[in-house]
């Protein structure tokens, strides 16, 4: 039974690592800062949660602390990405040429000129 749980835990670890790898890949493939922030926010959150779950299967006595780390990351990871994305937008970071609509700049056209 423990051997079985170990295998499941190990597979979760590998799965999490694969998502981190996808994150690293996406970071290099996405054409603009916003795409990169998206990739960074999503893949690292799921990747870490899978790794933490796997670690919990392999070392059940660590489960409580792993859970705490998971809850913390689940809350802070998207938050830091949002703050970063807002900074990028306010700094007028270059956008991918494919960008279709930009309601944000439409709404903030006057204010950004005031600031300049």
């Amino acid at each position, binding site marked *: 039974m423990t051997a079985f749980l170990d295998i499941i835990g190990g597979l979760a670890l590998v799965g999490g690592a694969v998502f981190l790898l996808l994150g690293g890949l996406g970071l290099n493939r996405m054409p603009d800062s916003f795409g990169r922030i998206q990739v960074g926010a999503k893949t*690292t959150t799921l990747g870490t949660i899978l790794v933490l779950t796997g670690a919990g299967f392999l070392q059940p006595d660590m489960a409580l602390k792993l859970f705490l780390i998971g809850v913390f990351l689940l809350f802070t990871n998207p938050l830091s990405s949002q703050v970063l994305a807002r900074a990028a937008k306010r700094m007028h970071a270059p956008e991918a040429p494919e960008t279709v609509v930009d309601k944000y700049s439409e709404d903030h056209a006057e204010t950004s000129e005031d600031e300049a």
Partner: protein
Amino acid sequence: MANMLVYIAAAIAGVAFILALYRFMRGPQAVDRVVAFDVLTIISLTGIVLIAVQEARAIYLDVALVYALLSFLGVIVVAKYLEGGEK
């Protein structure tokens, strides 16, 4: 078997680390570097968790928790700084 899977996970995370490092060095925007840095810290965090599992030492998890806390604060502070830097 489970041991081997831990090593495989560590190796994959290592490749992810190198890819994120490449973006970190290339930029081009400051924001890109901060995103890459964020991803780098999280990959290191999973590295710490993997070591904690492999060595069966729960004390490393405290390191991971503090690491997560500091990286979050760091990113927020840098983002605030970048926002203000434009004016």
